[in-house]
């Protein structure tokens, strides 16, 4: 291999959920517009550490490579972000790559984000339109609502907002900003609004909106620039109104 510019990468590895974590360092040949996923692919092609020790390819999730699938969230140089949009030339070296810390590690950088999907189920983050007969066309959505809904619909469930949130930890079941933003999205939709009360009810349960403590890290970490703090405020308002007026006026 020609002695060109090198990229030094340190990966936090863990063989299985039960094994202890350890670090491995790699020196990779630099290429133009390299990102962290390319680094991991290069390691897979030639799984030899910097000291020349043979190892196995690093396990990680990725798919779209354009920041839309949400599978490649990792902690890179101490910050939660998408690996596919983390450009090597913009990162300080050695580049430290760790799995998200708020989700159980399956292996290396692959984590189990089932908690988020379960939370989405808990808050019914969908619009029920299945039935035994044709329901016909749904109501029209005004351009004003569309404009608000679109940014929310870009959520990729990557988990970065949970990763950076001081309130998401093993002391409680806080569902995290992304989930409440989805509640807002579906409550905003004219058909979805038919189940708004049920969603808000779930939001007032364990791990619900109450645990948000306004650190506002989520909105800074969101790769899709979703106005998460606005969503949290909006859902907070819907919740206390329902809590207060629910029993007063029904």
């Amino acid at each position: 291999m020609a002695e060109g510019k090198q990229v030094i990468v340190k990966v936090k590895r863990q063989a299985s959920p039960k094994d202890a974590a350890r670090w491995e360092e790699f020196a990779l040949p630099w290429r133009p517009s390299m990102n962290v996923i390319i680094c991991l692919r290069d390691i897979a092609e030639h799984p030899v550490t910097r000291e020349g020790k043979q190892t196995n390819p690093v396990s990680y999730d990725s798919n779209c490579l354009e920041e839309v699938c949400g599978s490649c969230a990792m902690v890179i140089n101490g910050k939660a972000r998408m690996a596919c949009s983390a450009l090597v030339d913009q990162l300080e070296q050695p580049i430290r790559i760790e799995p998200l810390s708020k989700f159980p590690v399956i292996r290396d950088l692959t984590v189990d984000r089932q908690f988020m999907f379960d939370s989405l189920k808990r808050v019914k983050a969908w619009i029920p339109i299945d039935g035994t007969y044709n329901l016909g066309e749904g109501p029209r959505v005004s351009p004003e609502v569309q404009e608000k809904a679109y940014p929310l619909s870009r959520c990729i469930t990557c988990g970065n907002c949970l990763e950076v949130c001081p309130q998401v930890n093993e002391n409680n079941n806080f569902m995290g900003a992304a989930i409440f933003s989805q509640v807002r999205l579906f409550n905003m939709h004219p058909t979805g609004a038919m189940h708004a009360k049920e969603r808000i009810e779930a939001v007032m349960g364990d791990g619900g909106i109450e645990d948000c403590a306004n650190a506002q890290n989520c909105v800074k970490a969101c790769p899709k620039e979703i106005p998460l703090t606005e969503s949290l405020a909006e859902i907070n308002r819907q919740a206390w109104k329902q809590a207060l007026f629910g029993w007063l006026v029904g």
Partner: protein
Amino acid sequence: MSATATRPETSYLLRKLHSLSGIVPVGAFLAEHFWSNSSVLVSGPKYDETSQGLQTIPFRLFVEWAFIFLPILFHGGYGIYIWLRGESNVTQYPWMKNWLYTFQRYTGLVAFVYIGWHVYTQRWLTHGMSTYSEVAQQMRNPWAFGFMVVGVVATSFHLGVGIWNFLCKWGLAATVRAQRAAGQLGAVVGIVFSFVGILIVVSFRYNWHPFASYLTQK
């Protein structure tokens, strides 16, 4: 799926009550307390007059417990519980609002301890009949004076950040713009309260009454 009556969980209601209690009655009492105590900026006798007026309100014990002591105990106690449920990560993510999140916990603790000491020395030991000379006496001790300044600033800061939190967390300031305005409001409250609070404490310690001329004006 049953679209039935809403029954929020107790912890939701407690958390809401915690947030609300910081504004009313605790925050409102702080405003009243600073307002009344600023009588000292006019003169010692004026301060005694104002505090005697408050010390002799009807149903005093009930008012004190229901609107001051119990709300503060609840707000502080539940606040510690909230603190324990979070895990600050401000070293990893040193963002401004993340700092405020962390500060809010420490200022709350300092304020809580300070208020405990303050109530003990100025409400309990004085049998609820504290006077200008007693407070001035206490403020002559540099440690008590220092703790008073720290306590006043921590409490004011906590209220300022708390107002911002409250407006965000109740969705009263829902847009980014409104939240920025809420933050500015909180900052103004924190600064004004700290300033007035320090003036009051300094007034006691140095027998300094900047508005004394009001008494001689015709």
